[in-house]
């Protein structure tokens, strides 16, 4: 069963669970003569966590603010669950929850009162307020005034705000900023559960690449307002599509035998051989460039010739490396 905020999907509904929750088409916005967002288009599907990456000033927050209806686009359209944000604002926003830029609330009010204000407008019950307070772990401090909250607590309250009405689309701008490690982990678990179990579409903008790597299913990269690419996160990191040659690291007991067998089977694919560091055993790391489909055959050949295979590891780069490669080092746009 998948919860969509308004009720529960049955089996039939599951088929349409991968619908487009957020649809952005040719979105453009300028400030003066500077084009900050330049004809970008992308979608976020239900059940998908989309990382929104780009250097400072690349137009991420501007895009998020346009989705939230705070800024007006010069051209292009944004629709949430099929409702255009500009022409059908109320219906669109009924499906949106999120934090834009900073998790600001009414400082003189307690956390609970802030949630109550939002709950009243969205028609949310007291029970749900308690539920989101539990989800973000603010039970002990919820009755304190928000102005006494730390940044992390404000972030938690912002997340609670976002989750309050069980929206079908969530967006977060630097959501883990200020959160402690446990808070980051809880946030990640919550968002993953909501996306993967309840079919919510999520857009997250962040500079914390390790966190994004653990959280996201796909990434959208913009730079200087232009869309640089949309990709599945693994493909983006590895820079290869299915069937492409990729680098793998083999850890074996004999470097010479391994090099000979691999060359016999696949030709000149060995790129490097090194003694494995910090190991009590005499093991060797052999870097090779092969297709993914060749790996089982290669492992079998090595084992048949008494070469012990301790590990086969794809040598994909981290999201951070991939991101820096893609954006040319993250210069401010």
């Amino acid at each position, binding site marked *: 069963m998948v919860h969509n905020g308004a009720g529960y999907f049955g089996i039939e509904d599951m088929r349409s669970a991968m619908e487009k929750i957020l649809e952005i088409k040719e979105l453009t916005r300028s400030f003066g003569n500077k084009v900050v967002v330049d004809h970008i288009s992308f979608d976020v599907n239900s059940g998908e966590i989309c990382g929104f990456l780009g250097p400072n000033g690349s137009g991420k927050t501007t895009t998020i*603010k346009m989705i*939230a*209806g*705070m*800024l*007006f686009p010069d051209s292009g359209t944004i629709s949430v669950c099929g409702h255009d944000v500009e022409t059908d*604002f*109320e*219906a*669109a*926003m*009924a499906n*949106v*929850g*999120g934090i*834009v*830029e*900073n998790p*600001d*609330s*009414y*400082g*003189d*009010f307690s956390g609970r*009162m*802030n949630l109550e*204000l*939002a709950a*009243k*407008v*969205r*028609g949310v019950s007291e029970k749900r307020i308690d539920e989101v307070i539990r989800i973000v772990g603010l039970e002990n401090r919820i009755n304190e005034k928000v102005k006494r909250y730390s940044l992390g607590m404000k972030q938690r309250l912002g997340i609670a*705000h976002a989750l309050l009405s069980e929206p079908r689309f969530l967006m977060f701008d630097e959501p883990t900023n200020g959160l402690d490690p446990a808070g980051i982990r809880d946030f990640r678990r919550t968002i993953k559960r909501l996306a993967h179990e309840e079919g919510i579409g999520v857009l997250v903008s962040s500079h914390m690449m390790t966190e994004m790597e653990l959280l996201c299913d796909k990434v959208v990269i913009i730079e200087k307002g232009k869309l640089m690419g949309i990709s599945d996160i693994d493909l983006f990191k590895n820079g290869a599509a299915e069937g492409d040659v990729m680098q793998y690291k083999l850890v074996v007991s004999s470097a010479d035998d391994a090099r000979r067998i691999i060359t016999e089977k696949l030709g000149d694919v060995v790129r490097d051989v090194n003694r494995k560091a910090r190991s009590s055993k005499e093991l060797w790391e052999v870097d090779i460039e092969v297709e993914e489909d060749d790996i089982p055959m290669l492992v079998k050949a090595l084992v048949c010739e008494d070469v012990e295979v301790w590990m086969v590891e794809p040598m994909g780069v981290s999201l951070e490396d991939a991101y820096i490669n893609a954006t040319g080092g993250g210069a401010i746009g």
Partner: protein
Amino acid sequence: MAKFKAVFSNEMRKIFHKKYVTLMIVLVYVVATALGLVLSAGHEYVNDDVDAQQNYENAIEDKRELGAWLDEQDEIFAANGVTVLTSTTGMFYLDKLGVYARACTLIEEVEEYGLGIMVNDYRREVLDMINMLKRRLICYDRIKDYTITAELKGKREMICPIFDEADRAKNYEEMERLEKGLSVDGFAAYIEMKKQDINDPKGNPVIGGIASATNVRQKAFYRDTILEILDIMLEQNITGEYPSHAKFHQDAGRLVEVKWFLHENIKTFGGDELTADTRKALEDEAATIENKMHSGYYNRGKWLNDEFTKDGTIVVARLMLFVGNILITLLVMIIAAGIISKEIETGAVKMLIIVPVKRWKIYSAKVLSLALIATAMTAVLAGWVIVLMGIVFGFGELHLYTSSWGVLSFEAFVLLYALLQLLSTLWYMMVAVSFSTIIRNTAGSITAGIGLLVLSLVGMIFGDTVMNPAILSYVPSICASTLADSVLPHLCKMTDYESIACFGVELGFDGIFTLCYVAVLLVGMVWSARDSFCRRDIK
């Protein structure tokens, strides 16, 4: 609608969550109550005045008689081809009946000397008089009709030398000096100056609006009587600072008038000879005024001397409403100044905007919540004034409010007065909301709003009215008083033709200001709401 209600309810909650709001609300009523009690303390209510309603009806009847008499004069004028102009110089202190008496004098002058009359003032009473004179008006100086002015200029010498522009300006100057109140030394100099003016053979003695003697004999008589009165004024320091001083001036004018009637043995300026009864009545009246003058009656109790006790409830109620309204306006302005900008400054606006409610609904809910608070506070204040005055003076003893356009019960007067003040408060509220929305800076909006309020209060101090119902700003006060003058008589179902005609005249002139007032409100609301909030980026 449900979402609008929710946003509205949230706005109310946000407003009342602020501690200073509660404190200010308490302050409004505490200050108003304290003021009411202090002003009423030791005050003995005397209700020996003629019933106000009866008084008013008598006045209407007098006017009808006068109208009939004027009709007769019409024929005489027409037969003799006399151009009738009117002058109202020196009528500042006259009550309505005094104005009619003055009109009679002028008509008499016209009849006797073939003089024209020039209108050079625009007070309500004057408009009444113009109407009484029924189309005999040739020139009304606020209408810049140069053809008519030219015609008048040619006849000016013939009309009356005392009505030239310099005299008129001097009269205004004198009035201002009296109204503002002068220092003791300055006042002595003023009295001396006035004596010299009066002794000038070309001068025209004026006191209490009794002026423009039409012959040397009358002028001499006026001069001697007025000199005596000036001495009393100097001795008792009747500077015009207090309402009782204005009453002195008014009664002094009446004394001059009554003495002239007795001297000439006439009933009115255009009237028959005195009968024994009317002579006795006039003698009593003159004696009463003189006794009061010599006993320092007009200098007792300042604001609330015995003469004013009959109006005491009105005076105290006005002050309570006036001061209370300033505090309510301040409170509403302070809240309004941050209504949009504060949320933008703190970033809380993001939480406000990402809700499934259109921006115009958010804006409307905010403005409506403020307007309701202002209305509720004003209504409670008005109710409290009625109750407090009832407790202090006795509920059956509250005075009727008499004006040129009708009579109201005390309760109705307080409610209408409060309504006019509310208009002013709402105007200020919109100014602050507009600033808050347009410049998006709370401190700037508060400064601008309070600056405007102070400017208006300064304008009030140097202006020529005291405690105008909506004096808090120039524009609202003009418009609110226009409403008072134009709409209220209509509501009061006046039947006398003069007032109905005045209604038309005033609506014509001042209706523009009223429209401006409404336009400023609407433009401010629409501009700030539509372009500065609903369709503007929130960065």
